[in-house]
């Protein structure tokens, strides 16, 4: 009872918490909580990172038949799979951004695409895939237009291209691209996959919208 009447006002919540930390039991709990949250953080971050990397391999990309039977089959033997130097570009190299932010956004979009795989089955036969291909390709083109073909530029850079070693057509066009601000996908559609019917008109439309 006397406590309640003591003259000292009751300390604020923060101060009380602070005081409690200084008691032995408080210090131990605090240390414990810190260690636990650190470990949990590491595990979660590691797991998150692991999941990101796991889903960023060619093996994962072609683990569904939609990709394996269509685009992966066509990619075989193209210059990004088979060339004189033996350096390869895999699906995520061209389709998943390298920087963390855009990468996470792309992964979230990809989760939405899984809905099409498991629930609606929009492209689960080669015929359906063909029917949707112009739409799918246009989406990739739009993304590349918006990022100035960022994924291509992760590997290829005009700065390091020796135009004199290139074929005439390539050198002339690349100079023109530099001068007029064109981007890789403007001239290099169908670099890794078969093109659908009416692709030129569809590309023009994507290009006009930007």
């Amino acid at each position, binding site marked *: 009872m006397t406590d309640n009447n003591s003259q000292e006002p009751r300390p604020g919540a923060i101060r009380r918490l602070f005081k409690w930390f200084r008691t032995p039991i408080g210090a131990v709990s605090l240390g414990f909580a810190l260690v636990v949250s650190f470990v949990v953080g590491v595990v979660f971050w590691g797991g998150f990172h692991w999941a990101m990397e796991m889903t960023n391999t060619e093996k994962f990309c072609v683990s569904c038949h939609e990709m394996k039977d269509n685009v992966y089959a066509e990619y075989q033997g*193209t210059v990004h799979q088979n060339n004189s130097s033996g350096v390869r570009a895999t699906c995520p190299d061209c389709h998943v951004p390298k920087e963390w932010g855009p990468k996470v956004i792309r992964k979230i979009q990809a989760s939405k695409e899984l809905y099409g795989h498991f629930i609606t089955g929009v492209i689960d036969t080669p015929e359906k895939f063909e029917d949707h291909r112009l739409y799918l390709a246009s989406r990739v083109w739009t993304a590349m237009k918006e990022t100035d073909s960022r994924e291509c530029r992760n590997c290829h850079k005009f700065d390091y291209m020796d135009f004199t070693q290139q074929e*005439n*057509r390539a050198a002339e066009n690349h100079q*023109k691209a530099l001068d007029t601000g064109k981007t890789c996908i403007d001239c290099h*559609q169908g670099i890794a996959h*078969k*093109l659908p*019917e009416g692709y*030129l008109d569809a590309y023009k439309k994507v290009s006009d919208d930007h």
Partner: protein
Amino acid sequence: MKKQALISAIAASAMIAVASFAIAQSASDVQTLRGADVDEPIGVEDVFHQDKQRFTRNYRQQPPLIPHTIEQYQIDLKANRCLSCHDWTTAGERNAPTLSMTHYMDRDGNQLDRVAGTRWFCNQCHVPQADAPALVDNTFKSSGN
């Protein structure tokens, strides 16, 4: 009893027949398509690279040879990559020679806006060329001779 013996006899002779056939198969000479034994290494064929200059036509109506690589250019029922540079709608922008009018004429002589179906498969007539020894003899004689 008799029936069982008969069945076993038939089964045994069938097995012997199959086995001897298999042995005969493996003993006979393996026919090779590459003209060398299985364990015999054969050299890699010479690789001839494509000539990339513009060529003079050998006769007036010759489809010009292709002066650039066409590797991996898709030409099928769905798309024709050549047209992305050579069609009249794109050639100016891509700085390539425009298809001549013959490519826009169908077999009845009608002029079309899009490339004629008879000209769709470009490499039926146009090919790249490499300076390589001929694989087969050529008996072509030009009308001039």
